[in-house]
């Protein structure tokens, strides 16, 4: 019996299959969840994948945040279920107010797609325990609306409480405040980031490295030892 990690598919999700594969490679069981599901099929954790959702017409993640599956996920996340939001998934998490702040268009107005170096600032979350604090990792980044922002008080609070989980290194790709690439909630079970760890789990593709695997092995250990 291993951990069951749900991966939600919204209309427009692109990286749900890669996320499922990353979960499987780490040794957990991926469970496909549909945006209309109200039941989470006994999963122990959820990944909100990257791509787009509902055309991102209003704002990225603004419409998907009200989908039936999110109602249940918001409820469960508040009760402690681990949730990882990648790229569009991160945008859904801020729109859901499970994470503070908001995402804006990249400051240079271009879609960006490149391998991005990050520093893991907090390895105390459900999704980062397999990294060393301060470890530098390289994973792909690809987005249009990646500029994390929040008011000064919120940013000060995130910094003071160590809730900035990832920071961009070697150049900020989108103008995010304090070079923030990813954050966590106060409890550490909900994590969101713009870059894509699920694309860096196999040396054959992506960056050629496996720096993203740690997200999925971290959650497996957390759930199996729970």
């Amino acid at each position, binding site marked *: 019996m291993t951990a069951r990690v749900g991966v939600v598919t919204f209309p427009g999700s692109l990286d749900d299959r890669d996320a499922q594969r990353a979960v499987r490679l780490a040794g957990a069981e991926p469970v496909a969840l549909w945006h209309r599901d109200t039941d989470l099929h006994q999963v122990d954790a959820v990944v909100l994948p990257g791509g787009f959702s509902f055309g991102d017409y209003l704002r990225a993640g603004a419409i998907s945040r009200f989908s039936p599956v999110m109602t249940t996920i918001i409820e469960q996340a508040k009760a402690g279920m681990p949730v990882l939001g990648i790229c569009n998934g991160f945008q859904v998490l801020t729109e859901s107010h499970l994470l503070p702040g908001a995402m804006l*268009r990249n*400051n240079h107005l271009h879609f960006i797609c490149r391998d991005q170096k990050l520093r893991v600032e907090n390895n105390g979350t459900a999704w980062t325990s397999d990294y060393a604090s301060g470890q530098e990792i390289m994973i792909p980044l690809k987005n249009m609306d990646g500029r994390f*922002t929040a*008011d000064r008080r919120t940013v000060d609070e995130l910094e003071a409480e160590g809730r900035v989980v990832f920071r961009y290194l070697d150049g900020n790709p989108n103008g995010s405040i304090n070079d923030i690439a990813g954050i966590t909630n106060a409890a550490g079970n909900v994590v969101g980031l713009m870059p894509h760890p699920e694309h860096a789990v196999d040396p054959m593709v992506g960056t050629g490295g496996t720096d993203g695997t740690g997200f999925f092995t971290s959650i497996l250990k957390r759930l199996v030892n729970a």
Partner: protein
Amino acid sequence: MARVVVDVMLKPEILDPQGQAVQRALPRLGFEGIADVRQGKRFELEVEGPVDDAALARIHQAAETFLANTVIEDFTVRVETVPVEEGQ
């Protein structure tokens, strides 16, 4: 039917690179003298039934929870008088 307009704008302190791009293009097109541009969204809601206080309160709630993200945006709600020929 009555029309209610919700205007959504980025908060003043939020950088608006889209507005900046528009502002930079204006002089190239011969439109001089525009010092700044901020780009926003306008929603026109055609309301069934009377636009009373209860209806406006509902729209205000929709704007606050959905049409605008109040972390980064401000919004205004107003009732628009629809010209007769358009309102038929």
